[in-house]
Structures are given as structure tokens and as C-alpha cells.
């Protein structure tokens, strides 16, 4: 970079360049001057290299007046920070916060050591709020947006990197309110979040924050800033801290669709993951499908991350991927993982389902599911679908539909229990081939007993407090009729079976089957889930701003915004 080399000292030259960038309204140029890190080859541009040396000798950290002298120099050279008038003669207030920021930037360069992450984090903790303050200037602040984005990324990277080295950062972890410990990524995200709030609350925009179909003023930075905060919080596993960001957006953001595709897609990915982790699978699939369909077709790694979560959410809701999804190049390997699960659900094959989701983590699909964090959700939430299919199957084989018009269709719960117990017991046998030959008590292949502890082991544990009491027996965790009734009750309550339980007959009384067939008694799970969610939310998703709110939405009051991690 050749920043006006005629000037004498490097501080003046760079400050002059800053002033020129502001005069030209060139935010990207400003960002390219206030560098934080060396570039390719670990070297700064010559001007910056010279600046660091000059600051260290002429404005050393040991000199108490150094910052004061820098401030005076900046004020003198960067005239754009003084009071001025706009083209129409209206007064423009001074931009003192930029002076403070530039002093902070210079001392950062002077003091930082690229090998000392802890020091860089501490310096950034001081510098980032200065950049945020400079962003706050009503008219010129917007020029700070690219700089803030760039700083926030560096800050987040340092925080996440340090978070993985706990021995380095013990002294930096502070007790937040109520004794909770705030991790470094949360601390960084909270500081960056202030910039997000400034963008969100910019009053200096066209009504609603939209001009000519594009976000106006600092509102252009809302999703850029939100995405950095979300990325930081996700990398630090602090998903719970994302909620205030989504609430703020719902309250005050212009609609998402007017933002560039990269910001939209990234934001919807995090929003979908957030809802998925909160078990709002319906909301998750709504946003993830939009993200997936809107993702650039050549960006396979991003599309893959979206697709994994999208498919998992749909599986849980009872929708299976078609060939269209399996054929997406971003979905490589999906078929091997998801088809066995959908097969188990289709058939009601509880044994196979248990094998796939077994907590001993031996199934070949486990690595994939653990990596993408869908193992537990699928194991926990697809189970009901397997139950439903199995009961439907048993009903189709052995259900008794009475003769008369009004006669009920009965499913013997003892027979159902027998099948459930058999499949659960088989799933305990580690060797699937031997399990397949297991014909149940009396017809059992005993080969596995010699190598397989779990399948034959029954609990003998009784709590010491209860030893010797009458009628106390160890629980062997085998299903009984009561549990079978509970399973049926759960399916009935969730709307997956249209029936009631007759305890006197130990039977499930399935309704509508006689006249309308199986579908009346066992409705399509996706339809059931969809209807339930439409009643509750009508496709409204927290954090997904589809339409402009009344007069640009509500104002976010900072005093109510809890910090992330609270």
C-alpha cells in the first residue's frame, strides 16, 4: 500500500490515509488500513511494519503520555473526526469515538505478539468495544461496518482457540452474574453483540430500515454481525445463548429476504440448528429447507451441514428423504446412514432400530450421527415412529375387527407385548445373526450365551435400604403390560393412533378401521405433526423475519437484553 509517502512519519501517513478513506466514504478502504494481523507469509505491509517499529520507539507502552500524544496526532490529521457540516449545511457531530478507536488500534499493534493468544485476547477485549463505539456515530459510523466484521472474526477466532486451551486462560474466566462462569467465546460474542444491537437499532434509516428493496444504513450489518455471534456461540457449544439474538431480530429486523444470499443462508442454518437443538423440529425443517434450497449449488460443505440437520428433523417428524435428496452431491453417504433408519421405522423393526441407536455406539452409522450431532435426537424421537409402525403391523396381522357395523377393532395388548419383548430381547444379543435365530423362550439358540453377557444378564441389584423386605424384587427392565399400555397411551396422546385402551380386555380399541381402513386408525405421522404445528405456530418461527413489522418493528431496549450465557 502506498499511503501518501510524502508525509514524514508513518503515523501521520496512515492517519492521512484513514482521513482520505472517510472523506471518500470508502468503508472497505478504511478496513484495509486498520489491520490487526499480518497477511500472507506472516508479514504486515511495509507501512504497517514501519508503524509498529515507530510506535514501539516513539510511543512506547512505558511512556504515560504516549496515548495522549497519539490522540493529539490523530485529532490533528484525521480532520473528519471534528465537528463539521454536511452538504446541506446541517451540523454533523464530531466523531471522537473514532479517535479513541484509532489510538486503541495503534497501541494494539504496538503491544501485540502473534505468539501470545492470551495477550491478543486481552487487547481485543479492549479494542472491540472501541470499534463498536465508533460504529455508533449516526452518520459516519456505518463506515466502521467492514472493520467491525473483520475485527469480530479475529476476536472470535482467538476466543474459540483459547477456549480449547483451558490451562492458558484460568485467570481470564470471570464469574458472571449469579456465579455463572462466562467462557471466552461468550465474552467475545457478548462484546460483538453490542455491534449487532447498534446495527439493529439504527434510527438513521429509511422507514422500516429498507430503501429501494435493500437494507438501509447500519441495518445492512444486522445479519453479518448476528452470524458472527452465532458462529462463535455454536463453536463454544453455547446454543442457549443464541435466543436473545433471535428475539431481537424478530422484534426489530427488516425482513430476511432483502439481505444477500450468503447472509440469509448462513443465518437460517444457525437458526435451524438452534430450533433443532431445542426440539422444535418443525420450525427447524421449515428454515433449514429454505436454507438448503437457497444454498449455492457449488458450496457443498455448507449444503451438506444444512442437509444433515434438515433430513434428521424430517425423519423425526415422519418424512423420509427421496432420491432427490440422496442424489445431491452434498449428501454423499446419507443413503448408507439414513436408509437403515427409515427401513426400521417403516417396518416397525424395533430390533434393528435399537441396534442402530444402541448406546454402546457399535453400529456403523454411529460415527456419522455423532459427528453431526443427530445420534441422540434420532434415537430419542424416532422411537415413537417405530412403535407406531410395529403396533400397526401387529394390528394388521392379528387385530380382530368385529362383525357388526358398530363393532370395535381390537388389538390384544398381550400379543403386542410379546412381540415388543421379543424384539427388545433380541436387540440385547450383540450378534445379530444369532439374534435372528432366537425363537424366544424354549426355542432359543444358546450359542450367544458363551460370548454375550448383556443378553443373558439380569439385574440382581436391590437398594440396601430395601433388602429383606417382602415383595421387593430386582428390576430386570423387561417390559410388562403396564408399560405396553404406556406406549399405546403415548401414541394415542400424540395423535399417532386413533384408539383407546380397554384395560378390562387388555386391548387397544382402534377406531375407524372397519369403515375407512388402516389409515383411519393409524394416521400418517407427518400429517399429524404438521397439523399440530400449524395449530401452534402457523409457520411462524422465532428469529425468522419474513415480513416488515409495523414501522420497522419494535425498538430493542438494551436494558432488557440479557448477556449471552445468562
Amino acid at each position, binding site marked *: 500500500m502506498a499511503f501518501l509517502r510524502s508525509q514524514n512519519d508513518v503515523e501521520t501517513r496512515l492517519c492521512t490515509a484513514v482521513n482520505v478513506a472517510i472523506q471518500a466514504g470508502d468503508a472497505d478502504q478504511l478496513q484495509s488500513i486498520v489491520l490487526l494481523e499480518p497477511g500472507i507469509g506472516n508479514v504486515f505491509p511495509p507501512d504497517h511494519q514501519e508503524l509498529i517499529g515507530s510506535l514501539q520507539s516513539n510511543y512506547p507502552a512505558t511512556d504515560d503520555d504516549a496515548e495522549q500524544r497519539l490522540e493529539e496526532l490523530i485529532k490533528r490529521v484525521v480532520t473528519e473526526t471534528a465537528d463539521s457540516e454536511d452538504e446541506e449545511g446541517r451540523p454533523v457531530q464530531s466523531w471522537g469515538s473514532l479517535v479513541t478507536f484509532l489510538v486503541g488500534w495503534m497501541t494494539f499493534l504496538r503491544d501485540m505478539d502473534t505468539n501470545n493468544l492470551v495477550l491478543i485476547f486481552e487487547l481485543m477485549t479492549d479494542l472491540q468495544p472501541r470499534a463498536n463505539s465508533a460504529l455508533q456515530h449516526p452518520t459516519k459510523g456505518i463506515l466502521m461496518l467492514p472493520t467491525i466484521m473483520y475485527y469480530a472474526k479475529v476476536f472470535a477466532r482467538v476466543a474459540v482457540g483459547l477456549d480449547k486451551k483451558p490451562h492458558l486462560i484460568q485467570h481470564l474466566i470471570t464469574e458472571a452474574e449469579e456465579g455463572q462462569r462466562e467462557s471466552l467465546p461468550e465474552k467475545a460474542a457478548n462484546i460483538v453483540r453490542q455491534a449487532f444491537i447498534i446495527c439493529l437499532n439504527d434510527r438513521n434509516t429509511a422507514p422500516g430500515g429498507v430503501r429501494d428493496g435493500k437494507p438501509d444504513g447500519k441495518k445492512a450489518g444486522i445479519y453479518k454481525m448476528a452470524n458472527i455471534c452465532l*458462529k462463535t456461540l*455454536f*463453536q463454544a457449544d453455547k446454543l442457549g445463548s443464541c435466543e436473545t439474538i433471535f428475539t431481537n431480530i424478530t422484534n426489530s429486523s427488516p425482513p430476511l429476504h432483502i439481505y*444477500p*444470499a*450468503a*447472509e440469509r*443462508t*448462513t443465518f437460517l*442454518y444457525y437458526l435451524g440448528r438452534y430450533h433443532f437443538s431445542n426440539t422444535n423440529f418443525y420450525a427447524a425443517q421449515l428454515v433449514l*429447507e429454505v436454507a438448503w*434450497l*437457497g*444454498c*449455492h*449449488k*457449488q458450496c457443498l*460443505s*455448507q449444503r451438506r*451441514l444444512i442437509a444433515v440437520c434438515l433430513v434428521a428433523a424430517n425423519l423425526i417428524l415422519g*418424512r*423420509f*428423504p*427421496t432420491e*432427490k435428496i440422496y*442424489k*445431491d*452431491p*452434498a449428501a454423499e453417504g446419507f443413503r448408507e446412514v439414513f436408509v437403515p433408519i427409515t427401513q426400521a421405522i*417403516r*417396518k416397525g*423393526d424395533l430390533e434393528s432400530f435399537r441396534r442402530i441407536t444402541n448406546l*454402546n*455406539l*457399535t453400529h456403523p452409522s*454411529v*460415527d456419522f450421527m*455423532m*459427528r*453431526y450431532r443427530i445420534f441422540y435426537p434420532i434415537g430419542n424421537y424416532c422411537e415413537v415412529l417405530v412403535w407406531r*409402525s410395529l403396533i400397526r403391523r*401387529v394390528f*394388521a*396381522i*392379528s387385530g380382530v375387527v368385529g362383525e357388526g357395523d358398530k363393532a370395535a377393532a381390537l388389538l390384544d395388548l398381550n*400379543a403386542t407385548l*410379546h*412381540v415388543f419383548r421379543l424384539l427388545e430381547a433380541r436387540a440385547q444379543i*450383540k*450378534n*445379530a*445373526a444369532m439374534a*435372528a*435365530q432366537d425363537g*424366544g423362550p424354549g426355542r432359543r439358540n444358546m450359542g450367544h450365551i458363551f*460370548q454375550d453377557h448383556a443378553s443373558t444378564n439380569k439385574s440382581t441389584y436391590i437398594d440396601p435400604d430395601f433388602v429383606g423386605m417382602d415383595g421387593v424384587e430386582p428390576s430386570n427392565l423387561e417390559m410388562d403390560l403396564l408399560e405396553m399400555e404406556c406406549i399405546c397411551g403415548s401414541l394415542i396422546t400424540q395423535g399417532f393412533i386413533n384408539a383407546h385402551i380397554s384395560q378390562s380386555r387388555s386391548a387397544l380399541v382402534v377406531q375407524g378401521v372397519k369403515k375407512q381402513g*388402516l389409515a383411519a386408525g*393409524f394416521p*400418517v405421522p*407427518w400429517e399429524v405433526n404438521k397439523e399440530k404445528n400449524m395449530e401452534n405456530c402457523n409457520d411462524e418461527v422465532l428469529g425468522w423475519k419474513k415480513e416488515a413489522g409495523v414501522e420497522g418493528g419494535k425498538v430493542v431496549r438494551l436494558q432488557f437484553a440479557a448477556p449471552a450465557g445468562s
Partner: protein
Amino acid sequence: MSGSAQGSNDMKKAVVNDSKNTEQPLALEKKPTTQLEEDDEFEDFPVEDWAEEETQIPAGNTHLWEESWDDDDTNEDFAVQLREELKKLGK
């Protein structure tokens, strides 16, 4: 309910074969090594904005999901096994 002895043998054979294909009985004692790893990073997009034409997946964007998937094939292995099992109960 109509499973014959013939059907039963076929079923047994098929199931054993199936299991051999998907499981490795000798590798059963493998210790679980999987752990929750660091979240895969959602990388920044190389371009900021793109048109709708740039988003199409090769197979098209309709009929992505199968909603009605109940398996009513009474002759596949699992159904036959269940029928046999229930038959033993006199069902």
C-alpha cells in the same frame, strides 16, 4: 397368518444372510471410540450473493420428501417373522 413351513425356512435363511451382510460378528468387542467432536465449521461463503439459478440441486427441488411410507408388504422378512411369532400365540 398363512405362513407355511416352507415360508418359515426361507425366512430363516434370508434373515441369517441379511445379518451377515450388515454385521461383523467377530468385530463385536470393538470399543466405542466415537466422541462428540468439535462442531463442523460452517464456512463463510466465497461469494456474497447469488441468483436463484445458482441454487438448483441436480435433481430438482420438488418431491423431496416421502410422507406416506407405511410398509404393507406382508411377504417381506420382518412381516413374515412377526406373523410366525403371533401364530405361536394362537393369534
